[in-house]
């Protein structure tokens, strides 16, 4: 076989030993190569136990090489004596390790449960879709492998992947699908699900002809592929879902697990060999980024594409740390042992805190600059060298010690993020790189956002609570220095939230006006900081319950370029009905059209008019049912509810209809009049439009609208009166005539 260049698509263990590698060749061919690969792992502990393990391993049928060694566990001083175990059979190693751990539970183990792609990445610098050069013999056995690019490339070469998408013609949870729709480029193929044999035969023909690299499905993990596999068994007709003829598919079962007081549900998974299956409905971050983001995630974390698309960012970060550790001769512990070093009770009060969260000055403000530290916590981790093995930093921005594991891992990711962000500012809108950059940035953002939390996670291999506390300590310090700089330069600080502050100064309305402040903050903290924008106006909202009480991080506003930003209000909530969120968004956009403070009053009137129209549409039944679906998460097993929540009541309805809902899953429902007050959306029959509880939706809508209009002097009660049809129609008076005696913040605002 001649020398091959191409991109690495898939990599997994072969049952007979060594690895299977799939390459997408420059010549358009897809080739399966074999590569020998040595797996090394270690055991540590009391000498007598290690000797016993040695003897036990010697008696095993596997071909193992044993030796003594000294390696570095970063959570301990000096070098650790270890028993080194080497095997050529990567496939059998996890099983072998399980048995060892069961037999010798007292020992510590290292590098024992590391995924094969991570081991490969550490040795060769490989990663999914890496550009490679390979030399192999006529049997496909690789004698040389070189990786030609890196995950940190800003513009990696475009891999000519063949994508086949597969979906049922409707949501299987709602109704029984009749058709399977396959799509490739711009051709669509419809297969009836009633004629099972023709379906399998045609699908097999399609798969063989197209030979896709990526199978993109909807409901592929939970319904589609399991159904196809059932049909295959029933009719005894093979279907080449995996590309590897020697393998079937990998089936991972579903489950719910507990994480930080929340129940997380993980659906079952069907993974392929030589081909990547991604289920758009079961992919972790699909709402935030699509295929390009998922592929970027795989490139950066080193996880196989199918895994990267499904796991949480925490697993991604952990994988990156493992690769860095392996590359730097640092042992990867199987279980985290290191515990907190004792601190005094007084220290606990000082360090057991989060970011600084200020109460804002509520009300409406004009010409407000928003200053943001760029990826504050990761930046602090990298620049102050915060890592489980480094000492508590003495200062912000530099360290006397060599970079620890965490900065080594995060450094390149942070650099790439900053580079892409800077590029995004200068790229024209039509540049094709803009869309790709955005998708990739989303992947980076999630990984970076997670890495701090992961540092303090009790099960994180390289986590350490003191490191986590060091990050928040220096984060608070950085924010305070920013505040001091702002105040010394004559700014008023309106609000502060962990890594950002809102400032204003009379006469300052242009981005250039804030530049000196940015420079001063950067100088005092040694951290990258940017101007998020200048708000034409921004409203900080008080508590719904008591208008005297400011609430942090609850605001909305319009930037000078007309774009809108909102936090903490309904349109940001995942369980709100689209109707509520849409109307709130419309009202916000209406308010945003005001170019000057004077124009705002007119826009407020318009927004109320809009609200009135939408509420009338609701009452008259003109709002599509889909827009009224609320998605409530089921927080525990149904038996665990003393008083069932709306989500639980809907789940019970589904249970009676034969559909189970697991804790952690979202139940879609519509609020109906009377008992039980809800109608689960995924029931076979749709709710009766006449039964919809329009009064309740009106209340929800008024509450959401009052969040927006409260800074302009309108309470929920005011809105109720104003949108009540009879009054509104008959008395066409301008709004400020309705206001109570207390002057509203709009009047108090002095320009």
């Amino acid at each position, binding site marked *: 076989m001649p020398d091959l260049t191409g991109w690495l698509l898939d990599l997994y263990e072969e049952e007979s030993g060594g690895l299977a590698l799939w390459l997408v060749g420059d010549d358009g061919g897809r080739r399966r190569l074999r590569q020998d690969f040595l797996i090394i792992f270690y055991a540590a502990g009391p000498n007598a136990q290690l000797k016993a393990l040695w003897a036990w391993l010697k008696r095993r049928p596997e071909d193992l090489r044993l030796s003594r060694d000294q390696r570095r566990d970063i959570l301990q001083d000096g070098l650790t004596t270890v028993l080194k175990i080497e095997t050529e059979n990567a496939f059998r190693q996890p099983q072998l390790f399980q048995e060892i751990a069961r037999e010798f*539970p007292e020992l510590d183990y290292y590098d024992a449960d590391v995924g094969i792609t991570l081991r490969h990445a550490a040795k060769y610098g490989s990663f999914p879709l890496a550009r490679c050069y390979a030399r192999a013999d006529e049997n496909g056995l690789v004698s040389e492998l070189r990786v030609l690019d890196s995950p940190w490339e800003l513009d990696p070469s475009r891999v000519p992947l063949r994508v086949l998408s597969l979906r049922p013609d409707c949501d299987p949870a709602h109704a029984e699908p009749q058709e399977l729709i396959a799509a490739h480029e711009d051709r669509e193929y419809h297969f009836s699900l009633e004629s099972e044999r023709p379906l399998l035969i045609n699908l097999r023909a399609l798969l063989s002809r197209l030979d896709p690299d990526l199978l993109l499905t909807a409901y592929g993990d939970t319904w589609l592929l399991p159904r196809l596999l059932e049909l295959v068994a029933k009719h005894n007709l093979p279907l080449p879902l995996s590309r590897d003829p020697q393998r079937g598919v990998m089936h991972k079962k579903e489950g719910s*697990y*507990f994480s930080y007081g929340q129940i997380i549900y993980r659906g079952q998974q069907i993974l392929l060999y030589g081909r990547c299956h991604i289920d758009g409905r079961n992919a972790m971050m699909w709402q935030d980024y699509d295929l390009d983001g998922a592929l970027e995630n795989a490139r950066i974390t080193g996880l196989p594409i199918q895994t990267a698309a499904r796991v949480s960012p925490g697993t991604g970060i952990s994988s990156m740390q493992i690769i860095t550790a392996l590359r730097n001769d640092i042992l990867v512990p199987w*279980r*985290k*042992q*290191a*515990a*907190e*070093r*004792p*601190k*005094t*009770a*007084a220290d*606990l*009060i000082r360090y057991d805190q989060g970011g600084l969260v200020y109460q804002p000055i509520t009300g409406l403000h004009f010409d407000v600059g928003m200053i943001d530290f760029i990826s504050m916590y990761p930046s602090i981790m990298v620049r102050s060298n915060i890592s489980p093995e480094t000492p508590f930093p003495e200062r912000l921005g530099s360290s006397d010690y060599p970079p620890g594991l965490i900065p080594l891992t995060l450094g390149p990711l942070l650099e790439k993020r900053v580079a892409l962000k800077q590029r995004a500012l200068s790229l024209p809108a039509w540049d094709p790189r803009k869309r790709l950059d955005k998708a990739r940035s989303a992947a980076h953002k999630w990984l970076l956002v997670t890495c701090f939390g992961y540092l303090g996670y*009790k*099960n994180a291999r390289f986590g350490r*609570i003191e490191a986590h506390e060091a990050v928040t300590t220096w984060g608070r310090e950085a924010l305070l220095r920013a505040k001091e700089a702002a105040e010394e330069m004559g700014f008023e600080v309106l609000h502060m939230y962990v890594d950002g502050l809102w400032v204003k100064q009379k006469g300052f309305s242009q981005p250039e006006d804030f530049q000196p402040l940015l420079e001063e903050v950067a100088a005092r903290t040694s951290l990258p900081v940017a101007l998020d924008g200048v708000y034409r106006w921004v409203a900080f909202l008080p508590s719904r319950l008591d208008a005297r009480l400011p609430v942090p991080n609850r605001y909305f506003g319009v930037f000078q370029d007309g774009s809108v930003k909102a936090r903490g209000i309904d349109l940001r909530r995942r369980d709100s009905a689209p109707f509520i969120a849409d109307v709130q968004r419309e009202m916000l956009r209406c308010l945003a059209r005001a170019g000057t403070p004077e124009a705002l009053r007119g826009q407020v009137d318009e927004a109320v008019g809009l609200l009135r129209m939408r509420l009338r549409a609701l009452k008259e039944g003109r709002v599509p049912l889909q827009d009224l679906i609320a998605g409530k998460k089921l927080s525990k*097993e*149904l*038996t*665990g*509810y*003393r008083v069932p929540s709306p989500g639980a009541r809907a789940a019970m309805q589904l249970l009676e209809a034969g559909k189970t809902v697991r804790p952690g899953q979202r139940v879609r429902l519509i609020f109906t009049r009377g008992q039980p007050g809800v109608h689960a959306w995924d029931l076979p029959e749709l709710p009766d439009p006449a039964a919809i509880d329009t009064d309740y939706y009106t209340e929800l809508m008024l509450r959401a609208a009052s969040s927006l209009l409260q800074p302009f002097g309108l309470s929920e009660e005011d809105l109720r009166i104003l949108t009540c049809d009879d009054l509104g129609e008959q008395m066409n008076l301008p709004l400020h005539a309705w206001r109570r005696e207390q002057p509203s913040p709009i009047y108090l605002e002095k320009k």
Partner: protein
Amino acid sequence: MDALTLPLNNQLLVLIAPHAAVQMMLELSARLALTGDLRVLDGGNRFNVYPVARSVRRYTAELTSALARIQLARAFTCYQAAGMLAEMPADARPLLAIDLLATFYDESVRVDESRRLLAGCITHLQRLSQAAPVVVSARPPAAPFPERRVLLETLQEAAAGAWQLEPLPAPQAQTLWGTEA
């Protein structure tokens, strides 16, 4: 029951209560901190310093120095709890282990693994109790996990004295759909 009347000799004492006697253990930390150094192993993320500070303040204005005498370490997994006790040197400082079994009840750790780790912890608790008073507080496992009771029983048996502070909850009635919540 007044914490002060508890006999504090060099021995292993176990307090059992539905909420692991947290308030009492915090009060005990405050009293001990008035007159000497002590060590606290927080096994269930329970060490709220504020009530301890308020309690100390009732007896003395020297709040800062009293709080400085409390050496606290938190265990977030049973492996950490086991490791911390194994490495703890035996000296004259009393040890309070609050809600020790919390991490051992973690469903993601197998029962036999929890038992193995607990056996190790008990060895070290007994070692430490030869040089100073050791008081361990624990609560029974939550209703749906009766197989974990053995952990509490093992701890109880190992103690020189075990105090049950409130009646333990009655076993839950089994209904068709599982136990009542």
